[in-house]
């Protein structure tokens, strides 16, 4: 394609609307407008110039702000839809059951549409990806020509350019002193003043024009950080349960780190001590004050030999609390939850009639003995043990898991009178005697529990990109929002003084600034051509 040479001598790339150097209107269509469209300085954007190949078409599609806005709106609506019902990650039942059970036909439909995991769905990720592409192409399509145009601009501007500025005015009275005053005022207002042939171009805040592109770069880095998560090894997210007094291997650390849980602490607010909160506590019942696990982090020393106890070296003694995770070499260990596990149960062998006890036995629920000798000829055999008891499908007792959530036992109680023993089935709050006429029973004496701390182990190697992206985004947004790019032209044309001004936003501020710049001169304040138009309309 041919470049366009302007009458001022500047060579513009094909597709340019306003000459980069003097601002002369090169596009015939634009000449009809009383006020110029100054976006991107009328520079030659690829998307506005080429539309032949498939690449052109794709480029043009993604470079359109219209498309970008649609992508934002669709993502916005989709995101909102995902909040109607809880997402899959926040429910603790299988989703195929949960949604219908909790929310009826609507829940079922929600699940069938795949909204239960909306933010992880392929189409949501596709939307985000398209926004990413749109960000890159939109920015490239605009920032390069804009940069070139702003760099090439000359002080002296074409008449057609000046009179088609939104703020514009003509003065027939010419006084050279006025120029000196204006220059002084402009400099006081921190304008960069350039002069050529007695014409003035005052400019400030050009860097705010780069704000949008800077923030887009930040967003792209942020999204890239989000993508890094899918790279294996970049992102570790594991649950770790450690019982009090035990040491566990921290997952995904290459079998290097071990964590010992010394103690789990749960504290509630005390309405007598925390008097300020008395009323609120009475209303809410119990309010948790602190979840804390006192832990020691260990490093394994030496080779890992299977079957042998690893040698451990303590690295850190730490109190893990909510908001205060333990961090070490990129790993963070968070206090996430806790539970109380049954540890042991105590029973007494008792005569049903006399209620006389013949000794107590404590059963370790993780490691029960098969016989408990109570002395004097009394003993109890543990025939079967169901840590997580339920009646199976055929009515037989069975266990759901190895975790002692609901322990049940089959005992044989041996006594001097009954050396063969009597059988008794004991579960929580129930006893079944197969023979129906036992002399002895196992009476429940107490339980011991042990706290188990729930930790989340996390390592996120993509955080740096997220942080960097966030910082750059903020810089860009502030740069674009809190500064304005203002230009004021004061030029000699046909023996008159023409004043024109442009800003990318905040016209009110620009007009006020022009007023101060023109004080102590005989020059008229230029008018806002858009406003004149509107006032005309309003009068009609």
């Amino acid at each position, binding site marked *: 394609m041919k470049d366009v040479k302007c009458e001022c001598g500047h060579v513009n790339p094909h597709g340019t609307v306003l000459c980069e150097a003097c601002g002369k209107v090169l596009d015939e269509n634009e000449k009809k407008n009383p006020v110029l469209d100054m976006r991107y300085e009328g520079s030659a954007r690829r998307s506005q110039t080429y539309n032949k190949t498939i690449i052109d078409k794709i480029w043009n599609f993604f470079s359109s702000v219209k498309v970008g*806005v649609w992508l934002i709106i669709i993502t916005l609506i989709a995101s909102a839809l995902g909040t109607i019902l809880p997402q899959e*990650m926040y429910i603790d039942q299988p989703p195929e059951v949960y949604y219908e059970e909790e929310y009826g036909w609507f829940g079922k439909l929600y699940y069938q549409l795949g909204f239960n995991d909306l933010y992880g769905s392929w189409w949501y990720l596709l939307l985000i990806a398209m926004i990413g592409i749109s960000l890159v192409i939109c920015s490239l399509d605009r920032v390069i020509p804009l940069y070139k145009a702003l760099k090439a601009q000359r002080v002296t501007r074409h008449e057609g350019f000046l009179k088609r500025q939104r703020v514009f005015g003509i003065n027939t009275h010419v006084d050279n002193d006025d120029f000196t005053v204006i220059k002084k005022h402009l400099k006081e207002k921190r304008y960069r003043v350039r002069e050529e042939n007695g014409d003035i171009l005052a400019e400030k805040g050009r860097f705010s024009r780069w704000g949008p592109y800077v923030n887009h770069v930040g967003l792209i880095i942020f999204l890239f950080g989000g993508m890094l998560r899918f790279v294996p090894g970049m992102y570790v997210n594991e649950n770790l349960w450690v019982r009090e007094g035990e040491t566990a291997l921290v997952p995904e650390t290459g079998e290097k780190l071990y964590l010992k849980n010394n103690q789990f602490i749960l504290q509630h607010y005390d309405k007598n001590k925390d008097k300020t909160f008395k*009323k*609120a506590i009475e209303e809410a019942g119990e309010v948790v004050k602190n979840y804390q696990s006192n832990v020691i982090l260990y490093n394994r020393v030496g080779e890992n030999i299977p079957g042998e106890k690893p040698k451990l070296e303590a690295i850190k003694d730490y109190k893990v609390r909510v908001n205060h995770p333990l961090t070490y070499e990129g790993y*963070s260990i968070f206090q996430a939850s806790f539970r109380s596990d049954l540890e042991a149960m105590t029973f007494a062998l008792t005569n049903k009639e006399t209620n006389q006890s013949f000794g107590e036995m404590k059963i370790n629920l993780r490691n029960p003995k098969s016989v408990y000798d109570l002395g004097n000829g009394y003993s109890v055999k543990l025939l079967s043990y169901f840590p997580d008891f339920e009646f199976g499908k055929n009515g037989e007792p069975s266990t759901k898991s190895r975790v002692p959530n609901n322990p049940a036992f089959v005992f044989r109680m041996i006594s001097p009178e009954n050396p063969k023993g009597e059988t008794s089935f004991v579960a929580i709050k129930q006893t079944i005697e197969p023979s129906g006429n036992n002399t002895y029973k196992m009476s429940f004496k107490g339980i011991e529990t042990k706290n188990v701390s729930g930790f989340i182990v*996390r390592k996120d190697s993509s*955080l740096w990109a997220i942080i960097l992206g*966030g910082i750059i985004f903020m810089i860009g947004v502030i740069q674009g929002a809190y500064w304005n790019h203002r230009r004021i032209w004061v030029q000699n044309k046909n023996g008159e003084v023409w004043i024109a001004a442009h800003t990318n936003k905040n016209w009110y501020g620009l007009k006020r600034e022009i007023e101060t710049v023109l004080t102590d001169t005989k020059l008229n304040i230029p008018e806002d051509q858009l406003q004149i138009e509107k006032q005309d309309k309003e009068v009609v």
Partner: protein
Amino acid sequence: MVTISSNLLFIAFILYLVATLFYGGAITSKKGAIDKKGTNRWGKIAVLLTIIGFISQLGYFITRWIAAGHAPVSNMFEFTTFFGMALVGAFIVIYFIYRTTLLGLFTMPVAILVIAYASMFPREITPLIPALQSYWLHIHVTTAAIGEAILAISFAAGLIYLVKAIDQSKASKRTFWLEVVMFSLVTVLGFVAISSTFSGLGYHEKFTWIDKHGNEANLEYTMPALTGPHEGKLLTKEGFQPLVEMPALINAKKLNTVIWSLMAGLILYGVIRVILRKRIAAALKPLVKNIKLDFVDEISYRSVLIGFPVFTLGALIFAMIWAQMAWSRFWGWDPKEVWALVTWLFYAAFMHLRLSKGWHGEKSAWLAVIGFVIIMFNLVAVNLVIAGLHSYAGS
């Protein structure tokens, strides 16, 4: 300390009310209210009252902070009150940029409604649950609220624009929707009125009901139950027998409050219409006759420009930093997080439409209204209806 604190809040509230009257006076008084050369005497008094009110509310905030030991932004009452204060603060800042008292006439009532709405929630000082015990509570919540408040100024300016720009001589879609906005504001007043009436009367009635899992539960209403809970049995003697029973899926108590508020809103609105004999927006029109359209348009856009970075920082970036520390992930698609994202996306779309599609003026004003609706949705509906991890903010 707690008493001082609530007294200061009350003083602030009264001052805001009086200030609003003065803003009205500033517009109607003859001496060129919108003249470039500044504000008339009424206007000056109004601004002064606003500033004293703001300082008084700041006093409430500080004394309550001292009493509680943490910044009072940890429950619905405290957060919403702070939002109201931020709104007044944002108005004061914008006032000193643009010097228009008309903006006060539209902003102060919104702020008053917000604070009145806040005081309908339990006002006790609540202890912090472990997840909230972080200095990020102060940083994240206050910055987010300030950001939202500045964005809300664009709503007030947008409203002025619409009141002025929309032709009220004949009914149209535009007059209808503008009136819907007015009605919504009146309904908030209705909610406040009806809640305070029943709580003033000390109304209570108790039910037992069957929840969706088939469990029996207790429920206490503070307004007569128009919509009763699922298989509810009224326990209170002389209590109001529900007119309709709701299925277990629906929260009958909240629905009941909504219905009462709507009824109160309708009655209030009806009374206002009877008195005014025209649409509220039409009645407000004479107040805005002196202001230039593109001037309010600029205030509206400027508020978005100032508020957007603050909102991003507070509601997204600080939120992410804190979430990373408290919940071990910076982003978890919790409803509150998602709605902060929705708000952010909306204002991003707003700015793109304005910059490149040339959506200035009325379109831009409508967008400012929608943006405020989204912010309010995030404040009210997400806390009370959707809940989630941020649910402690719901009481």
